[in-house]
């Protein structure tokens, strides 16, 4: 191959590598801000002292309460407690008119995947942070990155476009679930998660 040919090939290679690793992730995801900011650290800290299950609990029937409804915020935030602009939004736009906050859920799985919190939390005693990270100590909500093709959060694939995991909660793909199941000796079957 002539020198020019090699350069052409290499240029194509470099261009596609750059596109694929740098431009593609930026293009694939679209950032959407949450309706308002929320500090988990403030609510779980010493001042308020809530635990995860105060707002995100497994009900007695085994279903998961998910993101709390605005009626759960109302008892404390019927009036603004502080001066934060986000709390003002909470009170005026959601609590007072009793309108649900359209939170964008980072961990929302595709509809064709069935995930019950009950067996994982109550039976397997898995800590919330194992899958959801140190959410409880976050001071704000990062923008929701929605996949333009699938419509789901980047959190499901993982922050790293390569799919490599640096932390246990970095990704919620089937392979992540299977790996944890294997570690704990849980036998998988298709119908267990795809009803």
């Amino acid at each position, binding site marked *: *191959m002539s020198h*020019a040919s090699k350069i052409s*090939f290499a240029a194509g290679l470099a261009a596609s*590598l750059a596109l694929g690793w740098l431009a593609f992730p930026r293009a694939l995801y679209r950032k959407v801000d949450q309706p308002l900011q929320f500090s988990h650290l403030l609510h779980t800290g010493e001042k308020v002292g809530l635990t995860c299950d105060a707002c995100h609990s497994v009900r007695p029937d085994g279903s998961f309460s998910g993101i709390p409804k605005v009626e759960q915020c109302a008892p404390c935030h019927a009036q603004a407690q502080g001066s934060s602009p986000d709390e003002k939004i909470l009170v005026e736009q959601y609590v007072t008119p009793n309108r649900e906050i359209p939170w964008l859920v980072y961990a929302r799985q595709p509809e064709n995947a069935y995930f019950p919190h009950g067996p994982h939390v109550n039976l397997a005693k898995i800590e919330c942070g194992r899958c959801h990270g140190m959410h409880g100590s976050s001071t704000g909500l990062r923008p929701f990155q929605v996949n333009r*093709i699938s419509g789901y959060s980047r959190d499901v694939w993982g922050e790293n476009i*390569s799919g490599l995991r640096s932390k246990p909660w970095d990704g919620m793909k089937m392979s992540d679930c299977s790996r944890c199941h294997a570690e704990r000796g849980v036998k998988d079957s298709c119908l267990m998660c795809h009803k």
Partner: protein
Amino acid sequence: MGKNFTRRHLLKFVGGSAAGLLLTPVPWKTLDDVAIWTQNWSWIPVPPKGEIQTRFTTCTLCPAGCGVRARCVGGRPVSLSGVAGHPAGGGSLCPVGLGGHHLPYHPLRLLEPARMDRSGGDDRPVPVTLDAALAAMARAAEETRSGASGGSVAVLDGRPGRTLSTIYRKFLGGMKSGLYLAPEMGIGANALQDMLLEPWGRPGLDLENTATLLSFGAPILDGWGAPGRMADLVLGRRDGKGRRLKLIQVEPRRSRTAAAADQWVPLNPGTEAALAFGLAHQLVQLRLFDEKSVRKRAVDFETGEGSSYLSLISRFTPDTVSGITGVSAETITGIARELARNSPAAVVGGGDPAGGPLGEEEERAIWGLNLLLGSVGKAGGFVPRREAPGDPAISGDGPAAVSRLEEVPDRSIRLLILDTAGSGGALPWKLIDRKLVPQNSLVAALAPVVAGDARRADLVIPVPSCTEALDEVPAPAASPVSTLSLAQPLQPAPAGVIAPAALIVRLAAALSVPLFSSGESAVWADCLKRRVEAIHNSGRGSVFSPQDGKFAEMAAIESPESLWKLLSEGGCWIDSREVPAPLPHYSLLGRKNDAYASMASAGAGRLAAVPGGAQAWPLVLMPSGLCGALDDSQVSPLMTKLYQESGLRRLLNQADINPATARAYGLADRGGAVIETPSGSLRVEVRFDPGVMPGVIHVAVGPGGGGKSRNRLRDRLNVLTICPDDSGRVWRVARARVREA
């Protein structure tokens, strides 16, 4: 570089890009995302997420009346399951019931009345207004009443015993010649009525106390009764002491029931009467029968004449019966001994839901066995059932009596109203068709979907689906005590549907037929409340609560309103048991004039003599199907794993044949074949099944398995169209032949 940048360099660039692309996440991530996207189209219905409310109701998809626990989100049911300890359901639901909450979304769902247009070879529902449909029905009914045209008004009620059934009968009583038709279901109670010389009450089977059950083809574990209750009785521990019902299953095929029974007795198709007579012969010969009671009560047991019961069964020695049925003499004697030894024993026959009832003679032969065993009128056997109080507002001049379809004169029905959804059984359409006034009849089907009988009708009136309507569920036909539970709407019904009771009220008003006592409400809920009040006033029975699994005696329920509340929350009222009335005198042969001759003839086998005989028609055709799943109307379009894909259950026109028989006729597994009978021919898909008796073909009547709109005329052709109909009552066996398609 520019001057030297040739096409070759461009191709190298592209090649490099392609190679590089493979080293990036682009192809793999895109593939993954597209896979997720294509599995989650926006139009795929998804159950809502949210807090789960649990509600209790009753399944109405067949007469069993299983209790239902519904998990609801956002006011809609998302999953159904059984209710532990439910007296009717036994804690489980069948596959049909489990998918009940899918049925409102059935692709064949009808949301407005329709006239069925059959021009062009398709069954096409053409929308009409409810007023127009009612006007057509009223016109037809008025013509019969005024004499402008001949014929009767008839209602075919697939679930008799409801308040709605009484309303039908009251309406028909106001017609000049109204016919109330109810199919024979359950344990052949009509045959016993024909044998008793005095009224005794409708018999129910006290199965909880039965020790041995001999079944002549009744699908005990496959839809004969509530699946949870039957599985508990036959397969499980029923009283904590390890006792369970011993089941002897007599049928040609190794069905699921036969496979799970304690003993499977394969017999030649259509020879049930012979086997019953053979067993009776041995019970008498070996003095194993209730001789004192029989000699006291049976008027024709031993008369000294040649036409007594004893003279009949004396012809059916074990060796003779063995030659007819294919069951060995030792087996026959063994069964007789077992029935006598492990008592109380009960004998039932019912046939396949698609194959229909046994013949009258077979049913009388079976009742004869029960009478010989002393099972009639005793715990663990058949006891008379007190009927539950009805709505006292439906009174006045008598409602129409119950008629049997086979007794209705041919070409005599001008207006036929079909309410057969949830009956659990199938009826060959030609048996109905021959009763209609030719070219001037109107058939109106009350159905939520255009499937099954509704496809045959001229008009289809949409009614609420099973999870959308307030309904009542009386005791199943074989229940030893009356029961009543309510089905509550779990979700709102669509705007265009009408409850059957409301339709009949409007039709009666148009014809000036009074249905209720003066001043009484015609609102459906009020009718049911009146019935519940009558039950409360009777002071009888107790009520099961699904919330805690406990029973409350009626005396402890303060008021009719409290009882209504309990039933509305999923409760089930069960009548108290009373000491059975003494069994009256009876005729073992039946009271018809030709009883002896017809019984003897049945003993020779049910397969009709046809021109050419067995040589021309060497095989036996038997329709088959499962209760509640005989057509598309009640099979969830989303339960694809059970019917539409897995092959676990048979679909319309799939035929099970013994492999040796199939190969003898050059048939291949999953290949096509044509089955011919003297009544017609049918194309089927062959499935090999070594559990099928050689020389026998079982053809499924449904469901169709599509889930999509299937309006093609040919899809209405099921095996019942080529089964014999000479007696108008028995179509379960037919002489047939088969060839490769």
